[in-house]
């Protein structure tokens, strides 16, 4: 189904956080203030790599208005953080390893005084030559950046199957290419910051963005040396994250300064500081050799991945795992030899970023597919079809995965699309001058969801009837723009046929939510849905049985509905008429789209229940007064579904996407302009169409930046692009104004996992589609992102080319 407002019908659900956002009334955590607060600032390293000889804070401490000056000596607990591998110092003591390294922090009564106090801290360094690339860091004799070595390797990966040399020996054609991808910046509009408030009971209240409040709380407790219960983390709403705020950033400094000064501390990074200290997407070099038989079947695939993970680990290892898994694409390949290495350097820290290493891998693999198809003189889409994994084939790591038709469905939908059909007859605009060239390209991807086998991926949730008589749902997920609150609202209305005013949705506060894992890896929607599937029956039974006891009506004659429990009506009317009886139900349920999963759509008896409503028996408010409040609370705990096979990082659930792009290239300026795009996404039933479109469109434009303009350039391990005036993310002028989203909603019959997340899938396959289109337009095979303009500039004529030649 082509997804838009019209086709969504009544499921076009207005976001509950919309009014606050468009009026500016919604307070982000960086907007919060308290009357007696002070301002925190962090002193960062002057060099990318140096030994610290001395730190003198006496001048800063003596300044008027300065309440606290902290260095490594003032960290009561572990002076390290890191979501998976805690190797990043809160404050450096002996060595600095990148320009974002923190050495000291101050709290002062004004931002200006805090800045002056930072200037007054004297640090003496012995400057060392930075390791500014993985090659430099892997060179023999290179200094080791971390003690845990060996060398500067953070992590290695490997997939070996068959015998790749024998495989290549049978090949008719072999394509070898090396692909380079940029150090992309998350560029969330709200930079890192928040408010850190110690209370009179000795508890610390942290109001700062994160994708996983409980993980922040655990890490902060470890740094402060207190119990986790001594800290409350409030972590929504968030002005964008995309993976970039999953690690601690300002939190250790805000927390320690607040505890030392005894005052609320406000932190808010400037953009420049955010660039300097914050995470980026891993720049990667991916060497690929792919061989095919005479018939065009891939026989052998050799891959070498080198990832620049920067100064600290963060999620560099899992990102490399993900890249390794995805560099085989959705294809059947008998002989495989993949090796990946993630390398510490003195560059900016690379970590989690939407797509999680899939973007780089898919760009490279799909690039190979287009090159091979051309050698075969075969339609690139047909070439992909021939090599695609079968429905029941194992996953990329030879692991068992959930059987779905997603891959062939997105392939077929794209094959039929008008945009892709243009590929057959390369489009030209007759009105354009001859140096304007057009082409169409497409790419396909399967993208793993959840953290993968062997990595703790707990989920859960809570459903309750609260004291105010609201149906309350609580999760430890965060709202960073993706529309989670709206999606939860819709799921609950679907389940209970209640109205939105009956709901209380609680997220982003460790004091109020159960531990249900993090908002990452496109997992929140699936996990919330699965939790509600587990909780709905006991919760509904409880409500109905209490209502039955109160009213004397048998509970099987009662149903949940707007405002409370209703009496079932007569069942003789048609379903359509019954649904039409209640405007709220009509609003919420709308018309289900055809092709939705049966299990999602119709198995719960709530549809019938809802259809039979005829009279209110007892309100939720009155129900909530019955019995003890804890009797109304229902919890669940479970794990994200993983493959049963022992393959670390291997996924079980995948989403599938095909993307086509029409591009116009100006061969005088080298500018490539994306004109038209179609995303086909197979991710199960669309719960929240507005959110779905927003995530795919937003991911697509983020991928456009990845492809054409974005690179946080570093020279000698220092950022050259320090703000949004030189680091160029797409503006409204740069986007593809024609962007269509087609959603394939089928899931296997009885699928217990429900809707899949789509937070990343819109961002992973656009780059190869664009570079394929550029190739059709210009004949140039692009192997480097962002696409270098000079590669697309054609000389005016041969004589001019000769004129500049030395011969």
């Amino acid at each position, binding site marked *: 189904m082509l997804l838009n407002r019209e086709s969504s019908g009544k499921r076009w659900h207005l976001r509950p956080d919309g009014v606050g956002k*468009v009026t500016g009334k919604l307070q982000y955590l960086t907007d919060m203030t308290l009357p007696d607060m002070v301002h925190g600032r962090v002193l960062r390293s002057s060099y990318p790599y140096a030994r610290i000889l001395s730190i003198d804070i006496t001048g800063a401490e003596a300044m008027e208005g300065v309440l606290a000056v902290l260095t490594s000596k003032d960290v009561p607990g572990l002076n390290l953080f890191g979501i998976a591998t805690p190797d990043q110092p809160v404050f450096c003591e002996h060595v600095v390893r990148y320009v974002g390294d923190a050495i000291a922090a101050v709290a002062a009564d004004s931002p200006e005084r805090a800045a002056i106090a930072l200037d007054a801290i004297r640090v003496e360094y012995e400057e060392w030559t930075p390791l500014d690339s993985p090659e430099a860091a892997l060179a023999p004799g290179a200094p080791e950046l971390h003690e845990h070595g060996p060398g500067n390797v953070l992590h290695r990966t490997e997939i070996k199957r068959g015998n790749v040399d024998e495989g290549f020996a049978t090949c008719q054609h072999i394509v070898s290419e090396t692909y380079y991808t940029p150090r992309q910046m998350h560029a969330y*509009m709200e930079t890192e910051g928040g408010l850190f408030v110690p209370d009179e009971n000795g508890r610390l209240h942290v109001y700062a963005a994160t994708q996983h409040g409980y993980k922040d709380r655990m890490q902060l407790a470890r740094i402060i040396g207190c119990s986790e219960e001594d800290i409350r983390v409030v972590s929504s709403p968030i002005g964008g994250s995309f993976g970039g705020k999953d690690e601690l950033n300002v939190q250790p400094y805000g927390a320690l300064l607040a505890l030392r000064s005894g005052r609320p501390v406000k932190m808010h990074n400037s953009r420049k500081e955010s660039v300097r200290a914050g995470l980026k997407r891993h720049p990667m070099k991916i060497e690929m050799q792919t061989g095919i038989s005479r018939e065009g079947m891939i026989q052998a695939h050799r891959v070498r991945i080198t990832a620049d993970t920067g100064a600290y680990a963060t999620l560099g290892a899992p990102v490399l795992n993900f890249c390794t898994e995805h560099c085989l694409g959705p294809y059947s390949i008998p002989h495989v030899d993949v090796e990946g290495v993630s390398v510490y350097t003195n560059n900016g820290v690379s970590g989690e970023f939407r797509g999680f290493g899939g973007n780089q891998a898919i760009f490279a693999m799909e690039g190979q597919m287009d090159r091979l198809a051309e050698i075969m003189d075969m339609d690139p889409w047909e070439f992909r079809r021939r090599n695609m994994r079968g429905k029941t084939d194992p996953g990329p790591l030879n692991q068992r995965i959930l059987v779905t038709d997603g891959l062939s469905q997105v392939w077929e939908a794209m094959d039929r699309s008008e945009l892709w059909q243009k590929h057959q007859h390369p489009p030209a605009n007759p009105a354009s001058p001859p140096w304007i060239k057009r082409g169409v390209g497409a790419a396909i991807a399967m993208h793993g969801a959840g953290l993968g086998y062997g990595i703790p991926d707990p989920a859960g949730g809570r459903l309750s009837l609260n004291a105010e008589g609201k149906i309350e749902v609580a999760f430890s997920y965060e709202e960073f723009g993706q529309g989670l609150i709206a999606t939860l609202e819709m799921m609950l209305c679907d389940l209970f046929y209640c109205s939105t005013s009956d709901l209380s949705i609680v997220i982003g506060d460790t004091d109020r939510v159960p531990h249900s894992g993090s908002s990452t890896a496109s997992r929140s929607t699936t996990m919330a849905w699965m939790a509600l599937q587990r909780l709905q029956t006991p919760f509904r039974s409880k409500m109905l049985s209490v209502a039955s006891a109160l009213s004397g009506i048998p509970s099987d004659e009662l149903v949940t509905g707007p405002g409370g429990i209703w009496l079932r009506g007569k069942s003789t009317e048609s379903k359509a008429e019954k649904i039409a009886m209640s405007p709220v139900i009509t609003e919420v349920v709308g018309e289900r789209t055809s092709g939705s999963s049966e299990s999602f759509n119709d198995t719960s008896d709530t549809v019938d229940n809802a259809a039979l409503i005829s009279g209110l028996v007892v309100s939720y408010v009155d129900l909530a007064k019955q019995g003890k409040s804890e009797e109304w609370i229902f919890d669940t705990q479970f794990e994200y579904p993983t493959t049963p096979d022992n393959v670390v990082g291997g996924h079980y659930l995948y989403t599938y996407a095909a993307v086509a792009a029409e591009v116009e290239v100006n061969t005088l300026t080298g500018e490539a302009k994306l004109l038209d795009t179609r995303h086909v996404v197979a991710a199960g039933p669309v719960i929240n169409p507005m959110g779905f479109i927003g995530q795919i469109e937003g991911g697509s434009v983020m991928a456009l930046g990845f492809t054409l303009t974005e690179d946080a350039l570093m020279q000698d391990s220092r950022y050259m692009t320090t*703000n949004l005036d030189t680091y160029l993310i797409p503006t409204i002028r740069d986007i593809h104004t024609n962007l269509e989203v087609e959603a394939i909603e089928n899931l296997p019959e009885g699928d217990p996992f429900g809707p899949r997340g789509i937070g990343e899938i819109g961002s992973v396959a656009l780059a190869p589609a664009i570079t394929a289109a550029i190739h059709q337009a210009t004949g140039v095979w692009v192997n480097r992102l962002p696409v270098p303009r000079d590669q697309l500039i054609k000389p005016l004529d041969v004589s001019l080319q000769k004129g500049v030649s030395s011969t």
Partner: protein
Amino acid sequence: MTEPLGNFWTAVVNGEKKQLRIAQTTRLVDVLRTQLSLTGTKVSCEVGRCGACMVLMDGEPVNSCLVMAYQCVGSEITTIEGLHGEKEGELHPIQQAFVEEGGFQCGYCTPGMVISTKALLDRYPQPSQEQIETGLCGNLCRCTGYGGILRAVKKVIDEQDRMGST
């Protein structure tokens, strides 16, 4: 806190006359966010590139991170908090359209985007695509891909068109 330095700064902010004692070199964005607690105006790049801090100064859109307090003495400033529908408390048609079309996700760019849309439509009630793109290219959004924003702007234009033709 120490006493703020400087002379009196006066301006009309969202229709109300404001008088503050501040350094005249303070940026307007700080006057709004810190002195007047109008945090609907956001701060992001601080170099005039992203538009998150966009406000109207005598009806013209300006990046309030680039305007010094002394430059707007006596001016009329409209922030996102000053925008409303026919009655106070109601959404302005632009705000309403952003809500209905999903012209926001994280929402951090949204106040600036709405203000720029207001300035655009005040100047060109029926803007061309080119004028829309020019009017909004000073506002960066990282979440929506601009699709919802464009649909919201077009919805307002269509509504105006409809109202005008009836």
